[in-house]
């Protein structure tokens, strides 16, 4: 995905534009209020979006389990979960026993489960499949679907998109008008002591060509983001469970509450590539998932942000319905997508894929991922889905 590298070549030192002053003034306006997500455009639809990628390919069938389907246990002699262990929901479906946190949200009507989400001619490579999901295009591409939303709704504000990561921003946030900022730990994200001198050097490089411009723009972006985020305050009062996902969600809540104008946050939580010995590993991972999101929702409620934030949890693919020799599962196709938040239409959406009519051993998708994300663009971000995806009908989840 060389487009990630190219991304900055279109970044023309945006934070040097008056845009940043606007961010500054918004902070002043926010003056101590905790819920400052409102960008002041379309109050009916606008919510901040937290995208969480379960990286590696989450085994959808052992996450939202078709426990009532006799074909399920036949496909998985070793890996099938027991009827007595799973957490039943509706229509013969059940959550993995470790997803108590999800069931709680489900019962409160704050969790929508979209079943069988995928796209035609699925790809089985992690990187290519991730690119497809992030581009929002079954052919992949150079721009991210959230990036296109950011461009389409260009507001002239900085720091609209943040990736909580030690790595580069993901393709999904790649935008020509609103470069995403990556932050590993907001608490230590402060400008260096000799900021003015460093800024002077990087400003000079922004005006130069090729790689020199890339470095210059990156420097200015970094210093501006550090200035903004260093004003962040409001530590979490909620006890999060241990684990990396929890730590990132806590940071997300703090950033959202800081009122620095963040509209989209991206988190990646890895380890789902369970080719071997899946049972114990998957249980651990899902236990983190369920408890972390339950804590996150509680945190948002305490901060008065529960109606202002929507969380989407997805994976680049599900896994093959039939287990393999090593007590694991190989790369598959469709899987469930979770949409969490107050105001979400909770419950099961779409059809569970058939376990008997398979496509070369893989599930046939029942809901196109673009219609799920199109619905998110329309109903969560308040954007125009047709400007982001072509020829889709957005799924109504709100």
């Amino acid at each position, binding site marked *: 995905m060389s487009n990630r590298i190219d991304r900055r070549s279109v970044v023309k030192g945006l934070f040097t534009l008056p845009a940043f002053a606007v961010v500054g003034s918004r902070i002043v306006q926010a003056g101590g209020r905790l819920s400052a997500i409102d960008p002041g455009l379309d109050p009916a639809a606008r919510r901040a979006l937290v995208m969480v990628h379960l990286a590696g390919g989450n085994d959808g069938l052992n996450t939202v389990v078709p426990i009532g389907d006799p074909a399920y246990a036949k496909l998985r002699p070793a890996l099938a979960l027991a009827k007595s262990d799973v957490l039943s929901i509706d229509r013969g479906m059940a959550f993995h026993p470790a997803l108590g946190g999800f069931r709680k949200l489900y019962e409160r009507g704050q969790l929508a489960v979209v079943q069988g989400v995928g796209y035609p001619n699925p790809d089985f490579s*992690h990187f290519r499949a991730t690119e497809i999901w992030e581009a929002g295009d079954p052919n992949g591409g150079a721009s991210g679907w959230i990036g296109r939303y950011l461009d389409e709704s260009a507001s002239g504000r900085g720091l609209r998109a943040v990736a909580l990561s030690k790595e580069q921003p993901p393709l999904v946030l790649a935008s020509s008008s609103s470069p995403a900022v*990556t932050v590993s730990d907001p608490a230590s994200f402060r400008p*260096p002591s000799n900021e003015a001198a460093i800024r002077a050097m990087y400003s000079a490089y922004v005006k130069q060509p090729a790689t020199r411009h*890339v470095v210059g723009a990156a420097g200015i972006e*970094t210093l501006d983001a550090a200035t903004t985020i260093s004003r962040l305050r409001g530590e979490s009062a909620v006890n999060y469970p241990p684990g990396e996902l929890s730590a990132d969600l806590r940071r997300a809540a703090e950033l959202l509450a800081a009122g620095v104008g963040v509209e989209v946050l991206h988190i990646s939580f890895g380890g789902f590539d369970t080719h071997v010995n899946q049972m114990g590993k998957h249980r651990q991972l899902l236990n983190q998932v369920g408890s972390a999101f339950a804590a996150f929702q509680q945190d948002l409620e305490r901060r008065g942000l529960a109606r202002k934030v929507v969380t989407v949890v997805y994976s680049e693919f599900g896994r093959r319905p039939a287990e*393999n020799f090593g007590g694991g599962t190989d790369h598959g196709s469709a899987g469930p997508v979770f949409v969490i938040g107050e105001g979400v239409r909770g419950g099961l959406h779409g059809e569970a894929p058939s376990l008997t009519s398979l496509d070369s051993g893989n599930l046939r998708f029942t809901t196109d991922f673009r219609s799920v994300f199109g619905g998110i663009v329309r109903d969560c971000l308040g954007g125009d889905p047709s400007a982001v995806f072509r020829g889709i009908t957005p799924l109504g989840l709100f």
Partner: protein
Amino acid sequence: MTSKSTSTREIAHLLRRTGFGPSRSELDSYAALGFERAVDRLVSGLAAPPSADPPGFSVYAPGAAAAAWVDRMRTSASPLAEKLALFWHGHFATSVRKVEDPKLMWKQVALFRSAGAGTFPALVASVSRDPAMIRWLDGNSNRKGAPNENYARELMELFTIGRGNYTERDVREAARAFTGWGAESGVFKFRQEYHDPGPKTVLGETGAFDGDDIVRIVTSRPECARFISRKLVAFLSHPEPQASDVAAAAAVFTKSKGSIADVVRHILLAPAFRSDASYRALIKSPAEFVVGALKVAGIGATPSWAVESMGRMGQTLFAPPTVKGWDGGGAWLSAGALLERMRFAARLAAEARAVDETIGLAFDGRTPAEVAGVLASAGAADRVTLALASPEFQLN
């Protein structure tokens, strides 16, 4: 730059690309050779056996493997061997996070160090038997009747020919050829009882193939010569190489039956390498930034905090983020990572030996005007910090 005379700038450029930048003594001794003979010395250094691990060396202590490798990068008499090892580590990207055995990871990098300049088919054959790789891409669960496609897929997609040059069926068939290629107690083991001896068809060839046959088939494809050559040109010379430069390197690859030393020598001696367009055209990886800073600042030992800081810059050795390795280029300069580079600069500056010497080495004796102006108005205590945090020093 002219090709006749060899400038300090040209030798410093060569030492940055083939290693981790110059120390004062390296700069002087390579400059005395002239450019072509400097290339000869660097490439012939690849043939020398890599030094043994130091006595009492244990990679099991936390962070020990990464610290030991960084120290080798800083001190090696054959920096190109370390540089190529780093290249292959990013190419055959394997992570200790799944392998869970630092010793196996260290051995894999030792393979890159000793065989990374040999022929590519031989390297791929060794990597296919490497116990860390077998753990990483699930070789032990690749068995007759229930093949695990992980290795076969990445072999084609990421390691040899690249996407678009094979089909799903090729992957499935190649996986069958690798059935039974496992590892036990950290040693490669072929298990006949798990191997599928039947005929397979891969990339148009049919036979009762095993893993070595697949390695031969994929590495002899012209797509492989182009894929590997392009990556080497982009790593050593220019981030967006001309098609003709890639084609010329690929021709050397094909003619030499995949000799990496020959391809590297060709790239270093090609006009594009010495052109102004290539000078400082790459963005330093965290390894290049950290080790380069230690060298120009004349730091005599590798501090453990420097290795930890490198991780926060986005490059934890032995733990690339995915099997695709590090994206590199502009992706190294995400806000968090660049901020960490600035912090690193301030901390290292406190230990730097000599201000003017450090700045001279950092900028090849010619500090760019935009940086020089800022340095001139800064106090002596801040000048090294600013030099190492400057945009120019992020460029390779």
